[in-house]
């Protein structure tokens, strides 16, 4: 199945987050973490370097604890495929302030670019629809990503999942801190909670 895109992932993430305002962002391990950091480090970022499959669910717990804030889980196709059941859990929980954006290169980029399920016909937006998500969509061009950025700034009736189809490539890594305690305490301080 050939439904790949020519969109550059870094350009896509930069366009998506251009006006993030006070959005809290959790990134899934691998390239989404590097993509998020490449846009600029931010106290409201929580970067995963492991815990594969957990990105969207950390987003759920965070969204439920902070219902007044918009939460974005920025992840990859490989990471989200490992957490497919979590889409059912999020669909049932129905948070109105959680968006999942999958940067989908249709490959497992960290491990040698093997084709992933999304490159073989599995449609994450269709799964999200079946799980009861309030809105879904797919962007393949920078114009579509800009429209998506505008859309997710608006209110939602429930969780939303968007796929951004990007070129399968590994741009130079942009590495945030790997110290999870530091990132955690910085994130909590950003929300006004005392560090441990």
């Amino acid at each position, binding site marked *: 199945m050939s439904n790949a895109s020519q969109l550059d992932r870094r350009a896509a993430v930069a366009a998506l987050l251009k006006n993030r305002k006070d959005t809290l962002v959790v990134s899934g391990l691998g390239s989404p973490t590097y993509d998020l950091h490449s846009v600029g480090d931010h106290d409201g970022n*929580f970067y995963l370097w*492991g815990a594969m499959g*957990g990105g969207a*669910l950390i987003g759920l*717990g965070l969204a439920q*604890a902070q219902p007044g804030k918009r939460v974005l889980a920025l992840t990859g196709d490989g990471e989200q495929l490992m*957490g497919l059941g*979590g889409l059912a859990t999020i669909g049932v929980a129905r948070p109105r302030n959680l968006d999942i954006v999958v940067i989908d290169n249709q490959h497992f980029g960290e491990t040698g670019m093997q084709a992933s399920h999304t490159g073989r016909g599995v449609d994450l937006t269709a799964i999200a629809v079946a799980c009861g998500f309030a809105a879904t969509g797919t962007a393949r061009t920078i114009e579509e990503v800009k429209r998506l950025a505008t859309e997710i700034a608006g209110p939602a009736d429930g969780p939303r999942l968007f796929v951004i189809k990007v070129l399968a490539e590994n741009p130079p890594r942009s590495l945030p801190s790997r110290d999870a305690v530091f990132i955690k305490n910085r*994130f909590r301080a950003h*929300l006004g909670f005392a560090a441990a």
Partner: protein
Amino acid sequence: MHSPKPNPETRAGDDWPSELYRILKAADVGQMSYVPDAGHSQLIRLFSADRDVTTNVLTTEEEGIAIAAGAWLGGQRSVLLMQSSGVGNCINMLSLSAIGRFPLLMLVTMRGEWAEFNPWQVPMSRATQPSLEAIGLKVMRAETAEDLVETVEAAAALAYDSDQQIAVLIGQRLIGKKKW
């Protein structure tokens, strides 16, 4: 609960889920996630009826580890309920709690160790405590209702006030034999 009992300890034993609910509420738990389990059914009912607690039903236990970390990032305390067979699903996700020193409290009802009718529960029962300890959790265990209530109270303080990752194992003898 209103039928005559041979001694007061047995009566207290019947009430342990209510006691755990009271303790967890006193510990300011704002989120509860669970994979359904007969031993936890009363606690699940109590939390689900509580409008001040957000409750998530999971498709698999490791989701609750990630949710608990997200809750803490957002300033809330979360508790996770499962049975011992679900511990095996959690191991990699528990690296998140361990490396991030995220407070974690898991209440785990044991299967496969006492009057178990299903032999398929036995291997994971044996692996529950060693695998939790191997990934860095502190394991506490209770065999009586009184001990359990005290243990969960201590575990909640350790988890949320001292940033510890704790699984409280609830002995199958305490749950009672499954009736079919």
